[in-house]
């Protein structure tokens, strides 16, 4: 069919211009809620331009006219089928209700995250028990290469002076580094979860090796006083990052699911975003505690006090994740 192009453009242009104008206005005012009349008018314009686009189907796909109409229909389609949540973002509500809800929603992924880390812990502890030379490989951190007893003595003598004038920047470094680790663990979920599982296991290996080293060296109280205040928040935050990564992996694999991969990914994206944000907030707190409290030991601050602080934090975090945001 050869259409009368000039007449087609002449008769269609007023409708196209009207729709273009409406779309420009809508895009400039994204928060505006349309009235029923406005919605009906937009829908009518959309249908007319869609019909015009259908008429151009006989024309070659690259024509300017077809491109122009496709662009208009595409923009109108996006506006008419708007599915976004228009509720205002409330940070407090998001953290205290949405985050724990998303956490509980995917608790199996968290449990798997914990299991992989514990497996790594067992491996790290066993490796160090079997081969004490493995310490330099498993714990490649300068401060951990000396024996636990030496470390305790050193910290006792230093009385936290090494932190003077650098607590703030140390805290900031911890926050950013740990957030980066958590987000990388999350992103590695796109490797069908393999990368996430490797990171979780590796974190567990280091943690298990450190714990074994200090317990074996008779410094269990120091270990608890050093790790508990920040660790009870930091480690769960990394686990939450791993949880989000496993949620992505599960959606990517889609065991037993009949919906498309794209749809599965879309369904979990909001929870993934929430878990990532929640982990980041937890790591900000952990960074502050690690720089301003964990690095101070007896005689500056008693181990009992630090352990109690850590246990209180752990209890509150457990209650928060288990109970907060329930209707």
């Amino acid at each position, binding site marked *: 069919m050869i259409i009368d192009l*000039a007449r087609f453009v002449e008769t269609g242009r007023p409708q196209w211009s009207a729709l273009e104008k409406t779309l420009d206005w809508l895009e400039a005012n994204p928060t505006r809620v349309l009235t029923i009349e406005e919605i009906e008018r937009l829908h009518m314009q959309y249908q007319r331009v869609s019909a015009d686009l259908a008429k151009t189907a006989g024309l070659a796909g690259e024509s300017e006219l077809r491109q122009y109409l496709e662009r208009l229909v595409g923009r109108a389609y996006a506006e008419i089928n708007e599915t976004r949540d228009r509720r205002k973002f409330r940070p407090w509500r998001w953290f205290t209700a949405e985050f724990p809800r998303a956490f509980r929603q995917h608790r199996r992924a968290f449990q798997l995250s914990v299991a992989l880390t514990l497996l790594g812990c067992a491996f790290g502890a066993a490796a160090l028990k079997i081969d004490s030379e493995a310490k330099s490989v498993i714990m490649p951190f300068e401060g951990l290469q000396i024996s636990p007893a030496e470390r305790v003595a050193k910290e006792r003598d230093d009385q936290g002076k090494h932190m003077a004038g*650098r607590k703030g920047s140390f805290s900031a470094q911890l926050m950013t580094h740990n957030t980066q680790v958590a987000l990388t663990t999350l992103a590695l979920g796109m490797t069908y979860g393999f990368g996430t599982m490797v990171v979780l296991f590796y974190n567990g290996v280091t943690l298990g090796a450190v714990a074994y080293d200090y317990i074996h060296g008779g410094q269990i109280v120091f270990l608890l006083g050093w790790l508990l205040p920040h660790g009870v928040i930091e480690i769960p935050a990394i686990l939450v990052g791993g949880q989000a990564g496993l949620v992505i992996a599960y959606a990517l694999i889609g065991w037993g699911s009949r919906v498309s991969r794209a749809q599965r990914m879309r369904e979990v994206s909001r929870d993934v975003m929430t878990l990532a944000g929640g982990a980041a907030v937890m790591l900000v707190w952990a960074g502050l505690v690690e720089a301003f409290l964990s690095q101070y030991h007896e005689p500056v601050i008693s181990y009992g006090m630090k352990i109690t602080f850590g246990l209180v934090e752990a209890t509150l975090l457990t209650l928060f994740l288990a109970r907060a945001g329930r209707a």
Partner: protein
Amino acid sequence: MNPSYVNSANTLAIRTPEGIEFSLPLAGPFSRMLALAIDMAAIAAAEQSLEKILAPLQVFGADVSGALQIVGFFAIYITYAILTEWLWRGQTLGKRVMKLRVVDSRGLRLEPAQVVVRNLMRFLDMLPLLYLVGGITCFLNRNRQRLGDIAAGTVVVRSLPVEAPDLDQLLGGKYNSLAEHRHLAARLRQKVGPETAQVALEALLRREQLDPAGRLSVFAALAGHFRELVSYPPEVVEQISDEQYVRDVVEILFKRAEPLRRSAPATPVS
């Protein structure tokens, strides 16, 4: 609502529930790489500005300003693309310059979670260096998606402004000697198929983009084809260039519903 997707080379076609199909031109890895380079420069500039803004805070101690700088740099790095893509409807500064846009792969508007997730995935896409993972994935994926796009259900499209075509300058206002012969014009309409007609129209619409030699050969081929289909008297066509011949044929084909213009009285040549 479950639109189906038909993918051809470098376009993502979306069929709406009403059965209307429209296509989105996908952005290639090279233009995305250039946009990324611009964004990196923008982030570096923002970080330098932050450094200058925080400089006066040195009076509170190097520790305080250092801490704020570390957190500030990280926040800029993480939130730059998230905020710009959200506020500018799928565009960062680099994408604006390169005329690219992130859109939902179903043609819908972007949701905040999609913007956040596709940008969080940069931690993986940028591995091991220079966005190698993302680049390779983008190159291999039929929708030109990096891992972040796959996770968020987004695609990056070219966002060139498209104006309504101005056909008046093409089809109107000029004397058409071929239209004088109505029976031959009718035969032309009968013999020329829609595809050939469209090719001729496209050639006229894009004639300014052709180099001189290409332009001559394209219109020579088209005019030759039309001359083979319908023979006009030699006196009608002898003064007409190939391009003018094609223009007159196209006018006959695409403006058939209007009454044919009578020739304007020719200026007498003495």
